[in-house]
């Protein structure tokens, strides 16, 4: 069952986005997030959505994987959009007691839904196309200026690398322990909330025990290889910005300008 989680999984490939510099990808992702929330009318929202779809299509990742990543948060999308329908002010179209639906509410719901979906797609695109090591390398480089404030950038990045590295391992382990307890007749599917939580103890205890054991073993292994933090450490793969990255930055800036212009020339809907 844990195999079905598509969110945050790296899929090797050779597409344009795979070849981009991870630092540029992160910065462009942030730009896109700003873009998505800067779109105040249908024209600019349309531009953003179209560009997100374009990115998905050129990313060399099956569209199915993107749809799968939505599965996890579909409930959140539904709840926020339904809440937003009732949230708008203005003349009600329909009214039940204290609840009223307004045109603004419907607009809000559409915007929120499209925004969340775009957000998930674009951030999935980053994790699908970037290996966890590249990702943390890039984060470490981007956070380097924070060293002036005595923030341990390298240590934070190393912790992130390790955490990301062990997500699949722990998922696999959870799967294995669950199978082992199911083989002993553990019933994890039926019963109410409390019964289900209680049924998880035989899984959680061995999982914690093994997580601590792994942490200890990893620490020993790192020590054996004389790891002592970031100072003086060199990299095998040095991140480099090339023509492709520059081109992608230019295209994104174009979109940004486009969305800002649309916001100026067309009336805001929310």
């Amino acid at each position, binding site marked *: 069952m844990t195999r079905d989680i598509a969110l945050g999984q790296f*899929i090797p490939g050779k597409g344009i986005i795979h070849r981009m510099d991870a630092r540029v990808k992160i910065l462009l992702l942030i730009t896109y997030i700003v873009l998505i929330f800067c779109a105040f009318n249908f024209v600019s929202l349309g531009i953003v959505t179209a560009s997100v779809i374009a990115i998905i299509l050129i990313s060399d990742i099956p569209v199915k994987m993107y749809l799968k990543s939505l599965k996890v948060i579909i409930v959140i999308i539904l709840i926020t959009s339904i809440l937003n329908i009732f949230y708008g002010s203005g003349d009600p179209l329909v009214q039940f007691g204290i609840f009223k639906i307004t045109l603004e509410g419907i607009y809000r719901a559409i915007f929120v839904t499209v925004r969340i979906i775009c957000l998930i797609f674009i951030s999935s695109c980053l994790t699908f196309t970037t290996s966890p090591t590249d990702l943390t390398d890039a984060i470490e480089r981007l956070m380097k200026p924070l060293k002036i404030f005595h923030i341990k950038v390298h240590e934070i990045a190393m912790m992130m690398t390790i955490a990301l590295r062990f997500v699949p391992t722990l998922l696999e382990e959870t799967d*294995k*322990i669950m199978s*082992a307890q*199911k*083989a*002993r*007749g553990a019933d994890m599917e039926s019963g109410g909330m409390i019964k289900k939580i209680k049924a998880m*103890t035989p899984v959680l205890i*061995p999982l914690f025990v093994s997580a601590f054991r792994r942490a200890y073993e990893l620490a020993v292994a790192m020590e054996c290889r004389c790891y002592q933090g970031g100072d003086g450490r060199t990299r095998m793969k040095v991140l480099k910005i090339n023509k492709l990255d520059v081109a992608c930055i230019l295209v994104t800036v174009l979109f940004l300008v486009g969305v800002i212009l649309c916001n100026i020339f067309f009336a805001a809907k929310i």
Partner: protein
Amino acid sequence: MSIIEVKDLSFTYGINTPFEKKAVDDVNVCFNEGEVIGLIGHTGSGKSTFVQMLNGLIKPTSGQVLLEGKDIWEKPKEIRKIRFKVGMVFQYPEYQLFDETVYKDISFGPRNKGLNENEIDLTVRKAAKFVGLSDKLLNKSPFDLSGGEKRRAAIAGVIAMDPDVLVLDEPTAGLDPKGREVLLAQIMGYHKERKNTIFFVSHSMEDISRIADRVMVMNKGRLEMFDTPKNIFAQVEKIESMGLRVPQITKIITMLRERGYDLTDGVLTVEQAFSEVVNLLKREGVI
């Protein structure tokens, strides 16, 4: 009478993703009641997936598993009942121990089965005896036991459910030579008394040749061979082409035969080889 019948069984991991992989490919096989079946295969040959389909932990993509003539997935809601009939001991089972005491941990299975306290006490003590855990150990925390004791406690947890078929996935992996011997002897002792069907997955050809009545050889998800250990290990080349090996002693005898020594084929254990060689020497008048 065949206790388990496997028909056209296939399983594919990650269907419709870039990670799609056929783990078990169209396996057809029958097992008799009371048999000890050995299962060998290279890493990634589909052994683990195959055995997990026997007790419904993995639902086959296609094909059927018949337990005593009935499809185990006939009523998906009652799949738990199958798990009490086909007990499964995973690789490194000591990592699944969780309860406060060894006794409570072993009783997890019987309790899920719905036995009453008296029956639970009886089965737990019986299972502990089979694997040689003393009463003193039963009241200890499972995390205070030694590696070998943990392994035996975990196996007792499955034996306590009194399954008709017991699947053991590499039960001796990671144990020291003496620990392996003892555990094998205990499993065989249990089999002799309970007379149930045992499934034994192992990388140790020596262990397999010693205890198995019949051996399944899997390669790339397919069932390549299913025969007695003697017939299987006589085909040295075929076995080695699948990344496996025959017991060392069998290989030595085969090589001696190739050099013209008059020894019988299909020697599987050191004891057999010893008497074969002694007989040959006597025949030749050396001793």
